[in-house]
């Protein structure tokens, strides 16, 4: 097995073993209900994590996504509830606004050569602040369209439900996988994250790619905001606080190298599911403090950071043996 696949294999094994242990302790966790809930309850996290995977693959970070989710939710609630705008028009507006916001951040990162950490930190404050200025309270959304979409679901045998928002997340992961691993844009992203200088020499359009990456991340954060507003039927400026950090954790646990250049979209999916699994386990147990979610995620992150270092050493040794490498497939070319 290529060392590139180690983190993915490790994540998948951890998930399967952990799930098996959970099922052994609580047989009810092996049900279509729980599987359906995994998709529905983690839909907003999964969607935004796909965008974050692209950002991290390119060697950057996007701290603004949680705030963009909240802002989108508040914007939708105000447009739909106060101004009677049809939800589909409101969605289009919100997505366009989010994508433009991301493109702006991408442009600043590239042209002004500012670390993505700083630019997106500013974006995070800006979006959260704007959402809080629009309203301080939770605004309910009582539109027919919302109740129709949220009541639509495919009933699985055993009482589980495949909800619309769960299916949206799955679709985003499928499209994200194709985009990352099967298109020219995807290979540019990997190249930027692998080594920006050699990517430039190879003719990767760094400016366009960077702008597109952050536009995509914010666009998906906007989509995640739509899903979140469907999930809670409300817009709340303090929603999704800290989601950016959960998202980064999901991406790293999913086997994407934090320094960029190597990873899989599907790994992020497993990373999201691991977080969902821990939360479900805590609910099923019913005596553990919910803060154990954070403790376990923290522990897993440490394990994966160590694993990534080992992987970098292993691939460097390999590189010396086989100099013919492909840009984009190497975890890190130092």
């Amino acid at each position, binding site marked *: 097995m290529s060392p590139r696949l180690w983190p993915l294999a490790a994540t998948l094994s951890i998930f399967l073993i952990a*799930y*098996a242990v959970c099922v052994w302790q609580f047989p009810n966790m*092996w049900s279509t209900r729980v599987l359906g809930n995994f998709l529905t*309850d983690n839909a907003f996290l999964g969607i935004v994590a796909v965008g974050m995977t692209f950002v991290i693959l390119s060697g950057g970070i996007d701290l603004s996504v949680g705030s963009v989710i909240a802002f989108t939710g508040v914007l939708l609630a105000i447009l739909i509830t106060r101004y009677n705008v049809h939800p589909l028009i409101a969605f289009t507006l919100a997505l366009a606004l989010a994508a433009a916001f991301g493109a702006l951040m991408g442009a600043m990162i590239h042209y002004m050569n500012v670390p993505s950490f700083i630019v997106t930190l500013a974006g995070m404050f800006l979006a959260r602040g704007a959402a809080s200025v629009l309203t301080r309270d939770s605004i*309910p959304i009582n539109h027919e369209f919302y109740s129709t979409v*949220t009541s639509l679901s495919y009933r699985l045998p055993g*009482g589980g439900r495949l909800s619309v928002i769960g299916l949206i997340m799955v679709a985003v992961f499928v499209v994200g996988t194709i985009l990352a691993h099967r298109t020219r844009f995807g290979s540019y992203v990997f190249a930027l994250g692998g080594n920006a200088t050699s990517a430039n020499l190879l003719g990767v359009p760094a400016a366009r790619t960077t702008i597109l990456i952050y536009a995509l991340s914010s666009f998906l954060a906007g989509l995640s905001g739509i899903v979140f507003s469907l999930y809670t039927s409300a817009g709340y400026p303090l929603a*999704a606080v800290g989601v950016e950090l959960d998202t980064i954790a999901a991406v790293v646990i999913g086997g994407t190298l934090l320094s960029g250049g190597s990873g899989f979209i599907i790994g992020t999916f497993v990373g999201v599911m691991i977080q969902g699994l821990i939360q479900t386990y805590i609910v099923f147990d*019913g005596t553990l403090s*919910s803060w154990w979610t954070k403790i376990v995620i923290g522990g897993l992150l440490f394990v994966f950071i160590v694993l990534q270092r080992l992987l970098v050493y292993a691939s460097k040794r390999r590189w010396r043996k086989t100099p013919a490498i492909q840009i984009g497939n190497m975890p890190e070319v130092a």
Partner: protein
Amino acid sequence: MNVLKHILLGSVVICGFASATLAQDKMTVGFSQVGSESGWRAAETAVTRQEAEKRGVDLKFADAQQKQENQIKAIRGFIAQGVDAILLAPVVATGWNDVLAEAKDAEIPVVLLDRGIDAPEDLYLAAVASDQVKEGAVAGKWLVDNVGSKACNVVELEGTVGSSPAINRKKGFDDTVGATSNIKVIASQTGDFTRSKGKEVMESFIKAHNGGKDICALYAHNDDMAVGAIQAIKDAGLKPGTDILVVSIDGVPDIFQAIANGEANATVELTPNMAGPAFDALEAYKKDKTVAQKSIVTESKLFTASDDPKGQYEARKGLGY
């Protein structure tokens, strides 16, 4: 991978048998709590656990850390687990329709604790909450009964401006004492529900009214402000509880200590035991499939020096207030 699959399937089969043979008479209840942002909230959690243990209910507890998405996840988890009932202390009023409809589909009754929601009434079995107007009225009635016919000037420490407990507790008290001719509220200001503000505002009340000699009683919207005010009264050289009567609301441990020391006179309890009435309703529902009332109001009980304040203090101090 194959080995894993076998382990997984094997465990499902074994556990399936194991759970099938277990007795089903013990009720399993999931409790989705907002968080632990205040002492009262912590006490509510502690009392819910005690009540569950007393009744032999298997309680599954989920702390949402102030996030609605965590509460929705927890409720879905409870439904998947197949609990017999769910208790929900909602963090916000909106956005509960879908998940409660799912619980209803799964025939799991939901009881709301201490806060209401904007959802059709048929989505939950009952709602347990306190009556804040009544709390103010009970405090007012104590004063009316104790002052008799002599004239009495009252100063009032209000809660946070615009908050519903501040508005309702004021209304209940004012309506009750307003019906008499001898009791008059001569000053009323916010103390923000905090101890330090309560002390500060009481100091200014004392200064403004002849060194406190014109004040006959203090009414505080919560115990914390009363405890602060007691300090201010002592600093002014007066005897709280004797020179100035002190009545407040909540029933936190410190006020019972003050009552035991004779420095406060009465408190109206905001019971942290919302789960008790909820379990009663669930047990009744389990037996005959109906509930007596949709909206259950908890008792606003008055405690004075004759209600064993020392014992009350001992019983409450470990609850996390």
